[in-house]
């Protein structure tokens, strides 16, 4: 009987899921490992709704229904409750096995994400995922104009922008400039280089794909280390895109280990 989700348990499951969602969205920035930053209010809202629903249901379940259909807005009209009970009884006698298959059993599965969140504590996608999928070949961004880089010294730049400037900027604004990229380390099969990588997500981690820049001239740190690498662009020598996947290259001069950023994706 324990497997059947009774009323109290249903609400406890809802509360637990709500807690887990609030834990990763309202009280930490863990949710950034899974979705875009803009999702936060929706997650908090969804977590709060789950909590409210669960708590209201618990109150209702623990206070016998005969109390007050009107008060607090919870509870059932007596005749309705009886009707349901009757339905349950007739079925319970008729085919108890079917009954064990009752719908809410699947609700137990809602504990799974809670388990995953608390026990595995899934980190942001790292070098394993990045090594799996190849970066799509650069797209032509005819509509995007790249502003010239101003100022002296190293320029901090998202990896996506570096790749865009490397492939599609007719003014070759990267030439001779020192840039600083932040990402995690993905080893390369080719000798003498490694990739500084950031995953890009459109909505959630299920649609992530890696943005990689090949770094040369610096010893590869261990995989998944977050680093800030400074260097200059190595202009590609080929005239037009070769077939297959190619990455823009950076001649590295300086390397610094950094903490994992709050927002691990671009």
């Amino acid at each position: 009987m324990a497997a059947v989700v009774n009323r109290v348990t249903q609400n406890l499951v809802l509360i637990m899921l709500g807690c887990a969602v609030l834990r990763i969205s309202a009280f930490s920035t863990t949710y950034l490992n899974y979705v875009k930053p803009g999702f936060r209010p929706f997650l908090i809202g969804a977590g709060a709704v789950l909590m409210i629903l669960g708590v209201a249901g618990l109150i209702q379940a623990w206070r016998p229904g005969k109390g007050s259909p009107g008060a607090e807005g919870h509870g059932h009209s007596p005749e309705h409750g009886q009707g349901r009970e009757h339905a349950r009884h007739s079925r319970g006698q008729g085919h108890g096995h079917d009954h064990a298959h009752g719908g809410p059993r699947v609700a137990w599965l809602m504990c799974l994400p809670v388990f995953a969140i608390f026990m595995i504590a899934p980190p942001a996608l790292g070098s394993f995922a990045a090594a799996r999928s190849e970066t799509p070949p650069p797209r032509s961004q005819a509509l995007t104009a790249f502003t010239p880089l101003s100022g002296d010294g190293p320029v901090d730049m998202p990896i996506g922008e570096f790749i865009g400037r490397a492939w599609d900027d007719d003014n070759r604004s990267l030439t001779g400039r020192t840039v600083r990229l932040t990402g995690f380390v993905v080893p390369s099969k080719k000798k003498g280089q490694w990739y500084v990588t950031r995953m890009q997500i459109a909505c959630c981690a299920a649609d992530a794909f890696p943005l990689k820049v090949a770094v040369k001239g610096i010893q590869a740190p261990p995989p998944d280390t977050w680093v800030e690498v400074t260097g200059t662009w190595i202009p590609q020598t080929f005239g037009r895109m070769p077939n297959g996947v190619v990455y823009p290259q950076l001649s590295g001069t300086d390397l610094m280990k950094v903490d994992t950023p709050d927002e691990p994706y671009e």
Partner: protein
Amino acid sequence: MSELRTDPRSPWADEDATVPPDSWGRGTGPKHTLPWGFALVVVLLVVGRFTLAPHLTAPALQTWATIFVAICVQALPFLVFGVALSAAITAFVPASFWTRALPRHPAAAVPVAGMAGAVLPGCECASVPVASGLMARGVPPAAALAFLLASPAINPIVLVATAVAFPGQPLMVVSRFGASLAVAVLVGWLWLRFGRSEWLPIPSRPHGDGPKWARFGEAMRHDLLHAGGFLIVGGLAAATLNVMVPREWLAALAEVPWLAVVVMALLAVLLSICSEADAFVAASMTAFSPTAKLAFLVVGPMVDLKLIALQAGTFGRAFALRFVPLTFVLAVLVSVLFGWLLL
């Protein structure tokens, strides 16, 4: 559960009881049954947190868990929103409203309902409970199904996302809108003509004379527990396939035009990406033809693993078994037609 639904003797009795009555389990104990199962879950959670957690660090497992949690976390707000809207339809909108709002003849109601999908912003997880709420309120099933298929694909947010993902290709947005609406209406009409009522038990809701807010809460809890559980099933399957199937395999198939369309359509089913994000993914698959990308965009919001699980959970297995292949085939055919005409 679907066995119960198709049970000739009491087709929907189970629906009423799936949120068990207050008296549930009280027969055995003096007052309440203690939630032992839940206690077990909590114990497992606490013990696992301290004994297992340090060992669960294999990169493949972590990647899988990240994608699984990401799919669930991303879909949950939409599911809650959809369930709330559905419960609101059940609790607050009188049934007479729908008979007035929709054309009397079901065949005319189908395209109207499909177009109405353009108004509801949200992704596919929201549309399933809303459609079930509509059916419970007396909207013809075929019209509710057209709404179910159309709303995640042609709502303004999705169309804007598509336009952003395909800069300079407005025809992609037009094709997506046209093809998705066409599929939704065609499926609705086919269902109207050939569908049988025993395949699609009208989901009944906890109803009654209680205060409106109580009914609202009841309906929401009922839907959440069902749809939520099945969403997790879909999330598990999608995350597993996402980690296990290397995408390079697929790129190799992109060379053959007709195969590319089928591959992209299947990929849309397997990856189960939210309809608001799928345009970006499609755009990144540069190896594929525009028609194949269109197939991805049209199939994704209508058929994918988490949707199949949700539909089977909400409407029953007998329904999903017929509805899903029909929608998939029509979606692929219509995409090819639109791709050939417009792209």
